[in-house]
Structures are given as C-alpha cells and as structure tokens.
C-alpha cells in the first residue's frame, strides 16, 4: 500500500513539470496584452512600454520562464500584474469558498443519489424505477445555470427562505448560504449517481458470489447492504472523484449566479485580463487538485476492495 502510494506520488512529478511548462507557454501564445487591456483607449506606445517594464513583460521569454519555474518550485506564484497582490494569498482566499461548495454539493449528491440508486436497483423495472430514471434524465439534461436561477426565483424571491448572494459568517450561516448553490450542483451529480449506483448494484446482484450468499439463506437486506453495496460503490466513487475535480475548477457559473467568490471566478477574470501570474497560479492549483483527487480515488478503490490492494 505504501509502496503503491510512493510510486503514484513520484509519477506525479514529471506530470507536474510538463503541465507547468505547458501552462506557461500556452499563456504566452494566446493573443492579448495585459498592458493594452489596462490602458484602454489611452494606450500610447510609451505608456504600454512603461507598463511592460513594470509588469516584467519586457524580459525575454526564456528569462520569464526560468524565473517562473524557480519561483513555482519555491511555492511562490508571484504577484498579480494588476493588483500587485500575492497570487498565493489570492488563491488561499478563494480556495475555501470553492472547496466548501464542492464538498457540500457532493454531500447533497450523495445523500440523494446513493439511497435512491439503491432503491432503484432493488425495485428494478418497476414503475418507481422507470419514474426515477425519467426524473434523473431530466435533471441531468437541465443546465446548472437554469436550475440555479430557478431555485433563486422560487426560494429567494417568491418564497424568501434563502439569500441570493454572499457566503455568510460562522458555521451555521455558511451552511445556510451554501444550501441553494449546493442543491443546484448537487442535484445534477445526484442524478448521475442514481444511474451509476443503480446499474452498478444490479450488476453486483447478478454475480455468482451474491447467488452463493443468497443460497446460504442470508436475508435479502444483508445481501444488499453488506455484500453487494461495498463492491458496487467502486464506480460510484470514481464518479464522485471526477465530479469533485470538475467542481473545483468548473463551479464558475454557480459562483456567478450566486455571487460567491471562488477559484473559478478568480481564474476566469484573470484569463480575460491576461493576468498571467494569477492564471498560472490557478491552473497549477487545479492541476494539483486533479492529481491529488485521482490519487485519493485510486487509494479508496483499494480500501473498498481488498483484491485491488493485493494486486
């Protein structure tokens, strides 16, 4: 297990180096000059040159790359070329908001998706199962921004139960402010989880070892919840892992609709403004998140299924 973990971790080093290099050069290839954006219609060549110097963009590209690489290895992502604020500080400020949203959404997705998926499997090919399939397909097809606006109009304007914007203070208020955005994201993931959970469960139920368990006269509840559930969770964990990485980097629409700060909005603004250090910092953080979550998903497989650990 430890060997496996060390080997997987070491493998991430060349991946990270390659990603960091690609991130740096891709940004330089994309058209758009931050100095021109900042100066607008007053961008005289002299003023542009002055800003380039101030931003460090007047140096040769290889020099910029080496500085960037050296700083990144030391955990220093530099300063925003606009606000001159430390990128690390900006990421540290934005990360908890997106992380909370992602976790809460996964929580909601799990409490809806896993039980309904199990029930759907148990009542396979019944009216309930068919109805649930239709509902999950509708939810899956509905874009998150539409669900978000719908929830806002219903539960914030028409029935004023929840706030439409902000992040709140303290434990309970933060949870309270997270409810609508998390339901928006969570229901979409829940719909996918229902389908995955159900089909995975049905597959497990039809396997030989379950037939053997049943032949032993074990009660049906135990067959489902003790023997089949554990193995059928493997693909579900994969789906959760994939959604988690997607959520951390792609919650931007929800952050916009609910006027929440977060990594998505930070990165998006920086991309439009060609704020290279912020974009680089955000992308490196996303990259680390993807690598870590993938690692955790792999490790959780071995926890759920000892055979994977042994192999």
């Amino acid at each position, binding site marked *: 297990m430890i060997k496996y973990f060390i080997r997987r971790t070491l493998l991430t080093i060349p991946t990270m180096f390659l990603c960091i290099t690609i991130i740096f050069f891709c940004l330089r290839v994309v*058209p758009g000059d931050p100095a021109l954006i900042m100066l607008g219609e007053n961008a005289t060549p002299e*003023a542009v040159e002055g800003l380039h110097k101030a931003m460090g963009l007047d140096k040769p590209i290889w020099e910029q790359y080496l500085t960037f690489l050296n700083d990144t290895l030391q955990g220093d992502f530099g300063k925003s070329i606009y606000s*001159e*604020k430390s990128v690390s500080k900006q990421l540290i400020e934005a990360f908890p908001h997106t992380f909370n949203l992602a976790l809460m959404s996964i929580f909601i997705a799990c409490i809806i998706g896993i039980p309904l998926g199990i029930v759907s499997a148990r009542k396979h090919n019944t009216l309930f199962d068919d109805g649930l399939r239709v509902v999950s397909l509708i939810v899956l097809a509905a874009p998150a921004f539409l669900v978000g606006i719908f929830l806002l109009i219903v539960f914030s304007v028409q029935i*004023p139960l929840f706030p*439409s914007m902000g992040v709140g203070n303290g434990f309970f208020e933060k949870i309270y402010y997270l409810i609508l955005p998390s339901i928006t994201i969570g229901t979409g993931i829940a719909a996918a989880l229902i389908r995955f959970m159900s089909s995975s469960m049905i597959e497990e139920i039809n396997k030989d070892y379950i037939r053997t368990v049943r032949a032993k006269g074990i009660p049906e509840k135990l067959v489902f*919840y003790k023997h089949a559930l554990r193995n059928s969770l493997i693909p579900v964990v994969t789906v959760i892992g994939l959604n988690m990485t997607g959520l951390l980097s792609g919650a931007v629409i929800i952050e916009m609709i609910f006027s929440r*700060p977060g990594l998505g909005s930070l990165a998006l603004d920086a991309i439009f403004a060609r704020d290279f250090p912020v974009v680089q910092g955000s992308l490196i953080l996303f990259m680390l998140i993807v690598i870590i979550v993938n690692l955790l998903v792999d490790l959780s497989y071995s926890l759920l299924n000892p055979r994977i650990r042994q192999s």
Partner: protein
Amino acid sequence: MMKRIFIYLLTLLFIVAGCSDTTSSDGNKNPKKNEAPKEKVLKVAVDSNPAVFDPYKLSTNSELVISQPIYNTLLRFKTSSIDIEDIEGGLAEDWETSKDGLTWTFKLRKGVQWHHGYGEFTSADVKYSIERVMDPELGSTSRENFKQVDKIETPDSYTVIIHLKQPDPAFLQSICGPAIVKKEAIEDNEKSGEIRPIGTGPFMFEEFKQNEKAVLVKNKDYFLGEPKLEKVEIHFMTDLTAIEIALKNGEIHMGPGLYEPAWLEQMSKNKDLTLDVSENGVFWGLYLNTSVDIYKNMNLRKAIAHAIDIKKYVKSRRLTAVEPKSVINSAVRGAYDAHYQYDLKKAKKYLKEAGYPNGVKLPEMTIPNLASFKGGAEFIQEELRKVGIELPLKSVDMASWVELVYSNQNPSTTVGLAAFGEAVVPFRSMFYGPSSMGQPTAIYNLTHFHEADRLIEQAETEIDRQKLDDLYKQIVEKIHDAYVVIPYVEGRSPLIRSNKVDLGYDFKSTMIYMYYITEKTDLK
C-alpha cells in the same frame, strides 16, 4: 455499511464548515427574514471584479465605483454633471489662470485630513500626484492629458502653481481627472503589498475581499460634512440576473441595469425600484480603417454610410439609446451636427461608382465577444446585406480584440466610446494622423484619418472660445465628409436603485456607470 456511509457524509458536512474562512463576512442575510440593519449600510452591486486600486490605473467600472467616494480631485464636476460650466472646487477652493493660459494657480482648502491618520493635505500632495500621473513608468491612463505641463511650483502649503508649455483648452477638465494621493500612503502600500487606498473623500477604505466585496466606512471628519451613511459595501456580481434578483429581494440597493427593452419595461413598473438612465452615453460607431486598400475607396465608404438605417436600431433599443448627433459623443463640447442620411438608392449608386455594381464582400470584421458589440455589428451586417455588401463577422475575447486593434490588423470595427468635455481630446486621440493605430505615436485613431491634423493642432492650443468652436466645426465637417466613422447609436447607461436610497442630488449623468456616492447619500 449504510451507517458508515452516513458517518462519512456527516464528516464531509463538518469539513465544509471546518474549512470555512472564519474571517469571511457578508451580512447579506435575506432582509425579509431578518430585521432591518441597525447601521445605514448602502449595498451597491457592480458587474465586474476590480483588479487595480491605484487611482491612476483604473479601467473597469468596479474600480471606478470603489475609488470615487475615497478620493478627491483638485477641481471637480458638480455631482452627476458632465458640463464644463459646472466645474467647481474640490480640494482647491479657488483657482485662476494667466491671460496667456500658461499659468494656473490653485488655492487649496485648509485643514483637510487624509484618511487613517496620514496628516493634513497640502500642496506637496498635489505636486506629487500630478507628477506621478506624468511618470511614463507608471503607465497612467491619464498621462496624455498632462503632456503640456512644464513644471509645478508649491510656494506654500496651500498654493499650487502649474506652468504649461503651451495653452491647453482642456486643462481645466484634465485637472478634474486625477485623484490626489498621499506619497507616504502609496509608498506604504508598495512596501506592504496590501490593498489600502488612502484618500480624503467622504468614505474610507476598510476591507476588500477578492471576487466578493469591498467595504468603505464613513470619514467622520470629511471637510464637506459627516456622511449620512455608516458604510458602503460594493459587491462584485458578474451575473446581471443575480443583480436583478438581489435588487428585487432587497439584498442590494443599487446596481447597473440591462439594455434589454423587456427588462427596462419590467423594471420601470416595479414600485419598489427607480430606474434612471444617464444623460451622457457611449457613442457607438463603425470605424473603417483607411489604411486597408478596400476602405481607401471613398465611394464604398459612402455606400456603407447610406445603407444603415440608424433610426431602426435606435428604436429597437428603446430607453437606452438616442440617435447620434455628430461624429463624436454628443456630450462633448464641439460635437456639431453631422449625420448620414439613410438612403438605399444613394447607397446602391455609390456602390456602383465604387466599382462594385453586383455587391462586394468586405474583409472580416473582428469584434469582442460581448453583447454590446455584437448587437450593433450584427445589425450593421444585416443592413449592408440589403445593398449587396457582405460583412463577415468574427468574435473573439476582449483581450485578443484589443491586441488586433492595436496592431492595426482589424480592417474595421465597431466600438463604443464615452467622452465629455472639450472635443479636442477625442479629436486628438481618434482623428489625428500620428495617433493612428500601428504607429509609434498611436493613441486610438482606428480609421487612419489625418485630413484635419492641422486644425486639431491649432485647436490644441486655442483658448479663445469663439475661435476654438470654429475650429471644432471645421474638424467635424472634415471627419463627416471623409465617411470614416459611421455613427449608429448613442447608448445611455441604465441604472437601478431601491426607493429607499436618497442620492442627495438630482441624477443626470454618470461617468462611472453607477450612481455617485457622496456624503449626502442616505438610506430612508
């Protein structure tokens, strides 16, 4: 197994809260659920995130909205006015100019205090601020306005004398631009890397939360009187639907409006809200780059100008648009009447004379991927199609478009520009030969028009009102006769506010795309 899953999920919920940034604050509970706040806190929504806090580098409206109540200028336009006649004292109580227009003397207010204990405001601060704007290394967006400044003298703590190299008819309005800053505060911010703007305005900077909000608190010692509001919160809400919902919900008090007719109609019927439309606007035109071969053809330019039914477009925009009056923004002093008549017969005739009797396909026009650009460009595309002119469109993100324009690679473009004050300023940046894109002295001449260079040079140093106005007339005529810019709309910015807000002044216009917040602004 189910028990274990439940425990995992419960742990997840606690992690959510455990990972929360405890310093994060909002206070925007649904007011319908909560009691009215004890403090008078004005909540403003802006549709962009600020990145820059240096008052000399501001460009987005959120940056302007944050900085407006913090800083003061030497002179200023009366709140909500853009009329040159309405210029009044700001940090300067009085001012005078020599007969030759080369020397400007400003008498400063005494006893004005900088925020957060930075001491008393003096003439040294004015000298530092203007010299800072002029510093090419800073890259200030206002630097061009001070190119005529020769030297600045401060004979005592309350007098500033500015000597110009040449008379400048726009100097008075230029001096209304740059915020006066404190050297020590700028240096402290540079050293610490913290965001902490220090000004002399009615509100002081308290805190900034990335992508969330900025909070300002009242400056009790403000020289024009203690502000009525305790705090101002500026929320960054990039989704306009979210702003609308928060406004209706009472979670914010003011915000930007949408240009959509249906939205405007709906808002104007809402009894809890007031819809305002700024008198000044953004002048939108189709700019034809005459350095590109096809647009050197005057008859083709004429055909394009006469093929666009401006009235139809303006009508479709309802409240937020008026017909353009001149070749520049109508709020500008010197925007004399000049427009092109919509006449398809004429357009076809000119197209034939241009050598394209069977129509023509123009080079692709690249525009930013924004609704404000797209609406007009697509309308023009349809109008031109009627006479057999095909205008292919391509949209890219703003940064790519800016680079394309500055490298003179866009054969034509639509663009909206806000301007006020003396016309010589936009004339010089947009219709002066050396300001043409792609040149070392480029400013923003998108068309490469240069036929009025001599007149613009004369206007730049003309301080006789009558002579200056005559020059403006001639310049407008020349631009009009060259058919390089086809004006199609003057957009008016819609703003929306709760009826609880008492602005403390009559709203007419705004240059920050938001209501001005002053010491008199209040919540009922």
